[in-house]
C-alpha cells in the first residue's frame, strides 16, 4: 500500500495540452481543431487522476460515467477496457468527449481541480473512444434474445439514438424515423465538422445498424405517418424530435436577404456541404462581413463556420458580458484565437436594407447588466442613446430554438407545456399517453447532448419495463440497467 503511494508521481499542476491546428491555418479549413492526445499524452493526463475513493466527478456527470474506473484502466494502458467501461453509461463517448460542457459538469467538481487544473476527463474520454474506433476492435455488444416487441423512435438525435441502441440490446425490434435524409440530429446538421467530424457520428450510427436497428430517413412524422398511426404498428413510441424551430427576434429587416437562422446557415454548410459549392449543389452566401447574434454554442459554431467560409470579418454580438456566455469555454477560447470579434453587452434593434432587399448594416444598442432575472443571470437593459451601426452583409440569428410543432400538434391527447414542449416524466420519459415516451430537447428545450442521451436511456429502460412487464424482467434477469 505504502509502496503504491510512493509510486505515484507528483501531480502535474497543469493539464497536458492537447495539440491543435494553428489558429490562422484552421480558420481556412473545416478540419477538426483539436487533434487529440497521443498515447503518451493521454497516459500522462490519466496519471493526474487521484482515483478518489468517492469520486465527485461521477456525480458531476449527468449520466454518471464511471470516470474513476475508466481512468484507472487507462493508467493500466487498457484503453479498450476503458472504452467499454464508459460505454456502460454513455452511448457516444467520442461525441461527448468533444462536445460536453465539461467545465460545468464532471471537471467542475474534480478533486484535483481544487488546487490545480482539473483532470481533462472529456479529453481522456475522447482519446479512448477514438483509440477504440481506430483500432478497429468492435466491442462485442451483448444482445438479449428477441422479445418480439416493436418500438418506433422518432428522431435520430442523441436521445433517439441512445434509446434505439438500448432497446435493441434489450431484444426489441427498433425502427428509427428521421425527417432528414441523414441520421444524427444536431450532431450531423448542426455541430460543424471542425468540432465533431461527421465520420464519427456516422460510425456510431453504423453501430446501431449492426445491432439490427432499422433507420428510415426522409420520414417526417406528422406528415408521412402520425404518432397515432405508429402506435397501431408498434408497441411503443419514443419521441426525440429535438427543439428544431428557429427563433427570430421580430426586429425590422429580419426577412432581408442575407439574414439566416443559425439552423439554416449550419444545415446548408454541414448537412448539405455548401462549403464545397459548387462541388455540392447547395449554395450559401460567403465572404463579406458576418454578424452572429447570440452567445451559445450555436452562435460560436455559426461565427466560426462563417470565418471558414471566407468571411472578411466575423463577429459575435451578445447582450450580456463574457461571464454569461453560455457556450463551452473551449469554443469561446478557440473563437478568440481564430480572430472572431466579440461585441459584448450589445443588443440588435434593427437590420438595415441596402435599398435592394439585402442587409447593409445592423443597428445595435449598448447594454448594461442589472439585477438577476428568473434565469438567475443578470438582466441586460439598453443604455439610452447608445445606438450605433455595424456594417455587415450577413446576419445570423443564433438566439435559441423552440419546439417544432409538427409532432405535438399531430398527436392526439399529448399534453404539452405552455411553450409547446412535450410533458414527460424526467425519470421515465412517460408522456400523458400510455406507450408514448419522449425525451431530449423536445421535452427540456435546448439542452446538451449528454442530457438528451441520458433521457433516451431512461426512456429505454421505462419502455422495456412497459413492454415486458416487471415479472418478465426479473425472469430475464435484466434489472434496471440491462446494458451494463
Amino acid at each position, binding site marked *: 500500500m505504502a509502496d503504491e503511494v510512493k509510486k505515484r508521481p507528483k501531480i502535474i499542476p497543469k493539464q497536458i495540452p492537447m495539440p491543435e491546428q494553428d489558429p490562422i491555418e484552421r480558420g481556412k479549413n473545416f478540419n477538426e481543431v483539436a487533434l487529440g492526445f497521443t498515447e503518451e499524452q493521454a497516459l500522462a493526463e490519466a496519471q493526474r487522476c487521484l482515483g478518489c475513493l468517492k469520486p465527485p466527478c461521477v456525480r458531476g456527470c449527468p449520466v454518471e460515467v464511471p470516470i474513476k474506473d475508466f481512468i484507472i484502466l487507462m493508467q493500466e494502458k487498457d484503453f479498450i477496457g476503458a472504452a467499454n467501461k464508459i460505454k456502460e453509461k454513455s452511448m457516444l463517448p467520442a461525441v461527448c468527449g468533444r462536445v460536453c460542457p465539461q467545465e460545468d459538469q464532471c471537471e467542475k467538481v474534480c478533486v484535483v481541480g481544487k488546487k490545480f487544473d482539473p483532470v481533462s476527463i472529456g479529453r481522456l474520454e475522447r482519446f479512448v473512444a477514438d483509440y477504440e474506433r481506430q483500432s478497429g476492435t468492435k466491442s462485442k455488444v451483448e444482445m438479449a434474445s428477441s422479445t418480439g416487441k416493436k418500438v418506433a423512435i422518432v428522431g435520430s438525435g442523441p436521445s433517439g439514438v441512445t434509446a434505439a441502441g438500448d432497446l435493441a440490446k434489450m431484444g426489441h425490434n427498433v425502427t428509427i424515423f428521421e425527417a432528414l435524409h441523414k441520421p444524427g440530429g444536431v450532431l450531423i446538421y448542426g455541430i460543424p465538422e471542425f468540432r465533431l467530424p461527421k465520420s464519427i457520428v456516422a460510425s456510431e450510427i453504423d453501430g446501431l445498424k449492426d445491432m439490427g436497428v432499422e433507420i428510415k430517413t426522409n420520414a417526417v412524422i406528422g*406528415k408521412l405517418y402520425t404518432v397515432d398511426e405508429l402506435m397501431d404498428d408498434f408497441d411503443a413510441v419514443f419521441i426525440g424530435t429535438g427543439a428544431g424551430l428557429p427563433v427570430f427576434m421580430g426586429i425590422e429587416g429580419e426577412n432581408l436577404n442575407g439574414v439566416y437562422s443559425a439552423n439554416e446557415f449550419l444545415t446548408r454548410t454541414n448537412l448539405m456541404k455548401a462549403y464545397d459549392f459548387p462541388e455540392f449543389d447547395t*449554395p450559401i452566401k460567403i465572404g463579406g462581413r458576418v454578424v452572429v447574434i447570440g452567445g451559445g454554442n450555436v452562435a460560436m459554431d455559426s461565427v466560426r463556420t462563417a470565418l471558414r467560409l471566407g468571411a472578411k470579418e466575423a463577429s459575435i454580438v451578445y447582450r450580456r458580458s463574457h461571464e454569461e456566455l453560455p457556450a463551452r469555454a473551449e469554443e469561446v477560447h478557440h473563437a478568440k484565437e481564430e480572430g472572431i470579434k466579440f461585441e459584448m453587452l450589445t443588443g440588435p434593434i434593427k437590420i438595415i436594407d441596402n435599398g435592394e432587399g439585402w442587409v447593409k448594416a445592423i443597428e445595435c444598442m449598448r447594454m448594461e447588466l442589472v439585477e438577476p432575472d428568473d434565469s438567475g443571470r443578470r438582466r441586460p437593459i439598453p443604455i439610452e442613446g447608445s445606438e450605433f451601426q455595424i456594417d455587415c452583409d450577413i446576419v445570423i440569428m443564433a438566439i435559441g430554438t423552440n419546439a417544432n410543432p409538427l409532432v405535438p400538434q399531430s398527436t392526439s391527447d399529448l399534453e404539452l407545456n405552455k411553450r409547446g414542449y412535450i410533458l414527460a416524466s424526467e425519470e421515465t420519459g412517460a408522456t400523458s399517453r400510455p406507450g408514448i415516451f419522449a425525451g431530449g430537447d423536445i421535452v427540456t428545450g435546448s439542452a446538451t447532448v449528454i442530457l438528451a442521451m441520458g433521457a433516451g436511456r431512461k426512456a429505454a429502460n421505462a419502455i422495456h419495463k412497459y413492454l415486458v412487464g416487471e415479472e418478465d424482467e426479473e425472469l430475464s434477469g435484466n434489472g434496471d440497467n440491462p446494458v451494463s
Partner: protein
Amino acid sequence: MAKILEKRKVRPDVYFFRLSTPEIAKKAKAGQFIILILHEHGERIPISLADINPEDGSVSIMFMTVGKTSTEMATFEVGDEIADVVGPLGNPSHVKNFGKVVLVGGGFGVAPLYPIAKALKAAGNEIVTVMGARNADLLLYEEEMAATSDKVLVTTDDGSKGIKGVVTLALEDELKAGVDLVLAVGAAIMMKFVAKTTEPYNVKTIVSLNPIMVDGTGMCGACRVSIGGETKFGCTDGPEFDGHLVDWDLLMSRQRMYLKEEKEAMERYSCNCVPIS
C-alpha cells in the same frame, strides 16, 4: 430512393415524371409537395405534386428546367433512381364545396392544379380553369384540366390559341359573372396580379407560394414569407396563403437570394455536360 416509372418531355423545357413512392402516395393530398435530392451531392428542391396515385403507389411531378438541379433532373431516365424523396410536405388544400371556383395556372403551375381540381370537383364545386402561356405551343396539361373542369379558358399572349392576353383578363370576366373562390398557382408575379385582380371583387384568393426552402419541415426558416405583416414559414404554415395578404415584393426578392450562385452552378454544369469534341 424513388424509381422513375414514367418520363415525358412535355415541352422543350418542361418534364413530367411519375415516381414510385408508395408510402407518400398513400398519404399525399392535393396541394402538398415533396422535396427531392438527386444524388449524394445534390441540393434539396421542393416540387409540387402533379398527381397522386395511391393505387399504383406513385406520385407525379412536372418541372421546368430553370437551373442546375432541374436541368440535371431532366437527364434522368425511366428506371433511374432519385436518391431521396421526402413528403408529403406542406398543408393540403382546403377542400369543401365553395360553389364556383376559378383555378388559375401559369407555366408549370397548371400541374399542381390538377389534383386540386380533382379534389374540388369531387367536393361538388363548379370548376373553371384559366390557363395561360405566351403561345399555344407552351400550354401544359390542357387535356387533364379539361377532364376535371367544367370550363377551361385558355389565354395566350400572341393569341395563337384562346383569348389573346394574360390570365387576369379571362379571370376578370369570370369575376364579373360571380365567383366564390379563386386559387392560383404559378410564378410569383402571376399570382400577385391574380390577387390584385380579385381584390376589388372581394373574392377570397388562395395562392401557393414557392419561397426557397431547405428542409421543408419548419427547421430552418429559409422559406420565410410575410402574410398580413406577420412572418410565416412557407413549408409548414403554407404553401397556400391568402393572396391578398402576401408581401409579394419580399417573396420575389427572397427568391433571388442565390441568383449569382445559381448562375455559377448552371454555367459549370453546362460546361461539364458538353463533351469536348
